[in-house]
C-alpha cells in the first residue's frame, strides 16, 4: 500500500469512518449509549488509567463522536481532535488547559460577539484575563505580551465583517512569546483555510456553522496541531506536570504530539462535562461529507451578491474580502484563494432604520442568529449578536448601527439577488 495522501474531498467523505465491524453498516452508526461494557476488571482499570484506548462513558468519548473528531483532525491537518457540545464549550475547554487563575490571553478585537462576551465576562470569573489586540495592527499583539500571557486567540475570517487575519504574522508573535496560537476557523472551514499550515497550534470551530452546514445541530471541536512543545518550561502544568487525577501521569510525556487533545478530553471534557450528543455528531458528519461542494457554492454566491450590493444605490459600503476593492482582498488572495467565505456585512445609507426595514422586507433570507446554513440568513448585529457591546465597541468590532450581516446560502444566486432587490426598493 502506498503512502499517497488522499485529497481533501476524499478525506471529507472517508476520514475516521470505516464499515462497522459488527454489522457491516456503511454509514457511521449512531452509538446512542451512555456507557460501554468492559471486558473485565483489568480492562476497566486500564481504560480509567488512560493506559488503553477505548470507550468508557459518552461524556468522555463515543465512537460516533470519534469518527467526527478524526475527520475534522484530518481535514485541518492536525494530530487529533475533540468534539464538544458547542463552539463556546470548545473555547472554555481549551483555555482551561492553558490558563491558571490570574493568567492572561491576547485576543483579536474582531470576533464573534458571543466570544467577546465569553472572554470579557465569563472567563473573568475564572480569573482568565483577556487583553484585546487589533488584528489590523500586528504590533498591538506584540505590545500586549506579558509574562502571564498563555495564548493568543484570533479568527481566520472574522465575524461579522468577513475580514481576513494575517495568521502567519500573528503566529510569529506567538512563537516569539512562547505561547500557542489558537485560531477559530469557523467562518472559513478547512476547505478555505487550514490555519495549521500557517502556524496555528490549536484550531477551534463551531461545528454548528459550515462544517455541519445545515443549521440542525449545535457542536464544537478542538484540533491539536501537535506543534507546540508543552514541556519546554513549566508554563503549562496541565500538560507537563504529573496529574494527580491519573496516578501521576504526565500527559505530554505519555501522549506526545496529541497530548493537548487528550488533556482537553480527560481534564476538560471529563470534568466540565460539555459532551456532544452522538446524534448531533452523526448529523454534523453527514454535513461534512459535502463540505467542499457546499463551501465553494457558498463562496461563489457570496461574491455575486457582494458585487450586486456594491453597485446598489441604497448601499453605502460592502465589507467582503472577496471584492478586489476590499481592504482585505490581498490577505484573502493569500490565505483563502478559493473564496472569501460567505459571511459579510454591508452598510445602508438609510442607517439603523433602513437596516431594520430591510430585514423585515426580505422573503427568502431568514432573519435569525446563525451563520453557515444551506439557507441564506440575515441579521442586524447591533440589535442582536453584538447588542451587549457598547456603541464604541460595536463599531470597533464591525457591527455599527447601519450594518447588516448576511450569511449566503447555497440557493440559486439569482433568487437571492432578486429578494435583496425587492427588499431594498420596498
Amino acid at each position, binding site marked *: 500500500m502506498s503512502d499517497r495522501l488522499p485529497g481533501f474531498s476524499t478525506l471529507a467523505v472517508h476520514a*475516521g469512518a470505516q464499515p462497522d*465491524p459488527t454489522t457491516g453498516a456503511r454509514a457511521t452508526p449512531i452509538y446512542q449509549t451512555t456507557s460501554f461494557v468492559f471486558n473485565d476488571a483489568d480492562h476497566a482499570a486500564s481504560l480509567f488509567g488512560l493506559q488503553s484506548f477505548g470507550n468508557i462513558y459518552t461524556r468522555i468519548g463515543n465512537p460516533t463522536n470519534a469518527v467526527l473528531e478524526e475527520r475534522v483532525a484530518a481535514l485541518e491537518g492536525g494530530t487529533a481532535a475533540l468534539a464538544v457540545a458547542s463552539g463556546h464549550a470548545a473555547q472554555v475547554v481549551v483555555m482551561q488547559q492553558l490558563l491558571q487563575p490570574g493568567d492572561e490571553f491576547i485576543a483579536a478585537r474582531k470576533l464573534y460577539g458571543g466570544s467577546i462576551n465569553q472572554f470579557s465576562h465569563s472567563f473573568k470569573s475564572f480569573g482568565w484575563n483577556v487583553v484585546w489586540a487589533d488584528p489590523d495592527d500586528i504590533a498591538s499583539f506584540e505590545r500586549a505580551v506579558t509574562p502571564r500571557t498563555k495564548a493568543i486567540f484570533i479568527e481566520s475570517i472574522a465575524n461579522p465583517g468577513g475580514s481576513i487575519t494575517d495568521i502567519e504574522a500573528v503566529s510569529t508573535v506567538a512563537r516569539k512569546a512562547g505561547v500557542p496560537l489558537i485560531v477559530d476557523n469557523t467562518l472559513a472551514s478547512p476547505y478555505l483555510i487550514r490555519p495549521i499550515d500557517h502556524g496555528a497550534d490549536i484550531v477551534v470551530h463551531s461545528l454548528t456553522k459550515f462544517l455541519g452546514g445545515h443549521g440542525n445541530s449545535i457542536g464544537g471541536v478542538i484540533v491539536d496541531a501537535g506543534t507546540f512543545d508543552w514541556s519546554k518550561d513549566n508554563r503549562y502544568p496541565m500538560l507537563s506536570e504529573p496529574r494527580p487525577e491519573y496516578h501521576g501521569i504526565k500527559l505530554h510525556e505519555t501522549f506526545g504530539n496529541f497530548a493537548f487533545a487528550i488533556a482537553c478530553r480527560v481534564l476538560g471534557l471529563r470534568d466540565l462535562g460539555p459532551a456532544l450528543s452522538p446524534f448531533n455528531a452523526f448529523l454534523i458528519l453527514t454535513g461534512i461529507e459535502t463540505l467542499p461542494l457546499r463551501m465553494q457554492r457558498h463562496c461563489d454566491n457570496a461574491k455575486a451578491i457582494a458585487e450586486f450590493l456594491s453597485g446598489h444605490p441604497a448601499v453605502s459600503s460592502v465589507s467582503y474580502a472577496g471584492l478586489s476593492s476590499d481592504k482585505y482582498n490581498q490577505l484573502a488572495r493569500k490565505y483563502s484563494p478559493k473564496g472569501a467565505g460567505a459571511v459579510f456585512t454591508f452598510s445602508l445609507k438609510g442607517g439603523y432604520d433602513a437596516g431594520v426595514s430591510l430585514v423585515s422586507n426580505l422573503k427568502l433570507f431568514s432573519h435569525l442568529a446563525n451563520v453557515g446554513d444551506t439557507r441564506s440568513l440575515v441579521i442586524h448585529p447591533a440589535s442582536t449578536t453584538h447588542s451587549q457591546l457598547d456603541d464604541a465597541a460595536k463599531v470597533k468590532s464591525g457591527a455599527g448601527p447601519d450594518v447588516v450581516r448576511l450569511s449566503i446560502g447555497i440557493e440559486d444566486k439569482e433568487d437571492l439577488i432578486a429578494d435583496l432587490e425587492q427588499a431594498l426598493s420596498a
Partner: protein
Amino acid sequence: MNHDAYPDNYIRGILNSVKSIAMVGASPVNVRPSYFAFKYLAQRGYDMIPVNPGHVGKELLGKPFVASLRDLGRPVDMIDIFRNSSHIIPVVEEALTLYPLPKVIWMQLGARDDAAAEKAEAAGIKVVMNRCPKIEYGRLSSEISWMGVNSRTISAKRPPAPTQGMRLSLNRMSMGGGETAASDRAAKITTDKNKTEQS
C-alpha cells in the same frame, strides 16, 4: 532516514515484521508509560522481554527481567529504549555487540540521539526515534481513533469483528428457563461434536 517525519510504510513495515522486542527501561510500576506500552505490545502478540537491572529476579506480566542486553541469551528483532536522550548511546553501543544484530532500534517518545541513530544505521539497523510503538500500532490499526486521533489512514473495507464467530452468544442468559431455545440445541450439538472429535 529522515527522523523528523517517518513514512507510514516504514513504521508499518517494522511493526509487521518484528516478533520479539527487548524493552530497555521497562518499569513494573503500573502507571509508568513503559509498563503499559509493554503490556499493550504483549497483548498484541509481541514476544516481550523486560530489561532493567533494578528488577532482576522479578517478573513483568510473567516475563522475567534481565539486567542488560548482554543477558538476553537469545536473538531479538527490536530493542525499544525507554530512557532519556542522554542515556541512549550506551544502550545502542551495547546493542551493536549483539549477534545477530537486532533489526530495529526504537527510541521512545521524547528520546532522540542522532549520533546514536547514525551508528546503528551504519550497521544496517533501522531506527525510529521520538515515537511510541503502542501509539503507532494503535494509529495504524485505527484503534487509537477511538481517542479522536488522526490515524492518517482510510479504508472502505469491513474490519474483522472483534469477537470470534458467534461463540460468545453461548454465554447469553436464558430468560424463560427450560432448554427450549434453538441456540441452546445448536450449542449442544456443536459441543458434542467437538467432544467426539477430540476423543
